[in-house]
């Protein structure tokens, strides 16, 4: 099966409010996909459903062909999906290195790994691996800094390094370019391209349409919890419903 992530007829209601309506899409291995749409369209909710923060009301979610709909959120990373968050969710008083090492948890096996003094032994396998992940997002120089001392944009990228370390096939990145300046955005794009070149499948939620257009070959547009368009960036830009959703009915 070429599709690494597959949503089939996903719906989600909070009480009487249906925020995701019968959403289906598939992401092929190695593809770079963007989930876009106006504020409140349900983009982050889709991430929360895939990562298991909320249970779905209806539909199935498959990763690598395996149905993970009923898998508890704690075990989903082991099934192959990892994520970052829209707001920074790092431990502020831990070092960057320690923060990203938390991302290794899905791959530990048994008491020997849990009781390994990884904050005592320098140059351990875990530390080297975490440094390598930081290096992949260009942040190795910050390894020893406390997370809360760093700028917002850097902290967002630390989250990407942490998500990488879980060994997942699919990376869900919630607004990775938010708070970055033009140069940082360009750097991020190059890094994400290289990460996906190494086999990872990337799904981003992003408002920066230039970023989406340059990075992603596959765009899914949501509005009020419904998929209103899907295709290449150029294709979705031509869709009347997309123009309407972004600019209003008169512009269309």
């Amino acid at each position, binding site marked *: 099966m070429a599709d690494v992530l597959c949503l089939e007829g996903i719906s989600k209601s909070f009480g009487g409010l249906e925020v995701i309506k019968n959403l289906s899409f598939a992401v092929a291995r190695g593809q770079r996909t963007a989930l876009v749409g106006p504020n409140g369209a349900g983009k982050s909710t889709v991430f929360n459903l895939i*990562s298991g923060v909320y249970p779905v009301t209806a539909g199935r979610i498959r990763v690598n062909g395996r149905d993970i709909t009923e898998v508890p959120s*704690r075990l989903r990373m082991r099934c192959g999906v990892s994520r970052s968050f829209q707001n920074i969710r790092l431990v502020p008083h831990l070092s960057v290195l320690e923060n990203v090492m938390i991302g290794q*948890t899905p791959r530990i096996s048994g008491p020997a790994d849990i009781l390994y003094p*990884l904050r*005592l032994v320098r140059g351990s396998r875990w530390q080297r691996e975490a440094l390598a992940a930081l290096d992949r997002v260009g942040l190795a120089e910050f*390894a020893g*800094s406390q997370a809360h001392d760093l700028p917002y944009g850097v902290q967002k990228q630390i989250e990407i390094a942490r998500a990488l370390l879980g060994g997942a096939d699919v990376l869900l990145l919630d607004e990775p370019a938010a708070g970055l300046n033009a140069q940082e955005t360009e750097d991020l794009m190059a890094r994400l391209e290289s990460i996906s070149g190494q086999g990872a499948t990337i799904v981003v939620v992003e408002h920066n349409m230039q970023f989406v257009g340059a990075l992603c070959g596959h765009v899914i547009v949501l509005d009020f919890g419904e998929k209103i368009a899907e295709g290449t960036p150029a294709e979705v830009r031509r869709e009347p419903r997309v123009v309407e959703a972004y600019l209003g009915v008169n512009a269309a």
Partner: protein
Amino acid sequence: MSGYIEGILVILLLNIVFAYAVYWPLAAGQLNLGVAGFVGIGAYASAYASNEYGVPPYLASLGAALVTFAAAIIIAVPVLRTRGIYLALATFAFGQVLHSLFLNLDVVGGAAGYPVNAYIGIGGIATCALGVFLVTLFLDRTRFGLNMVAVHHDNAVSDLFGINVRLYQTLAFAIGAGIAGLGGGLYGHHFSYIEPQNYTILFSIFVVLFVLLGGTQTVFGPLLGAIFFTLLPEALRASEEWRYAIFAVLIIGTMILRPQGLFTVHEIRIFRRLFDRGTPPGRAHG
């Protein structure tokens, strides 16, 4: 060593043990106001074992640690369903229940107290305190300790990264209780007499107070808190009538000036910079 100094040292060492009994749950974000109850279980259980069955006092105290550890895992089932202030209240209630249990348990003397025959001297207590500190220090440096910090800071993210949040919370609560039980056993066997009045809410609050003021960000905070709050009242003995007033002012001052505690991650970094001139990657920045 004079009797006075030895007396102070024993209290200091016991306070260090009790400090880590409170630190463990706090490290996972739980305010345990029932620590006196666990200390009481440890004291009574070990005293009963050594009095009635001739169990050697060290073995009885270590056994007490296992008993309180196991008891805490059972108690954690209802208690850890609560969060924040409600968790503090639930543990407070648990401590009160145990206090009245000790008062009415005639087999260990009830309100009259319970003499303990076997004796543990300062050397034994010092060894146990050092052991508790070293085990805590080691565990803090492992992935177990790292995950504990993650659980304390953000349950939801910890869960998504594969950490069994409930298991970590239960273990933090139970390890703290086990240490409390050990401390109770040492206390009873050193002072040769235990009574329910030793294990009231005031005891719990005092320990929580000096752990919070010492700081819970690092494993050194409780140690410093215990030292500070055992020795300071003694140092202030010179002005007998004012010592508690001065003590109170110092506590309030600490809370205002050092809200994260006396010893935090920040101090660790300062020490590291001072002693760590050769800077390997990953530890270089401050």
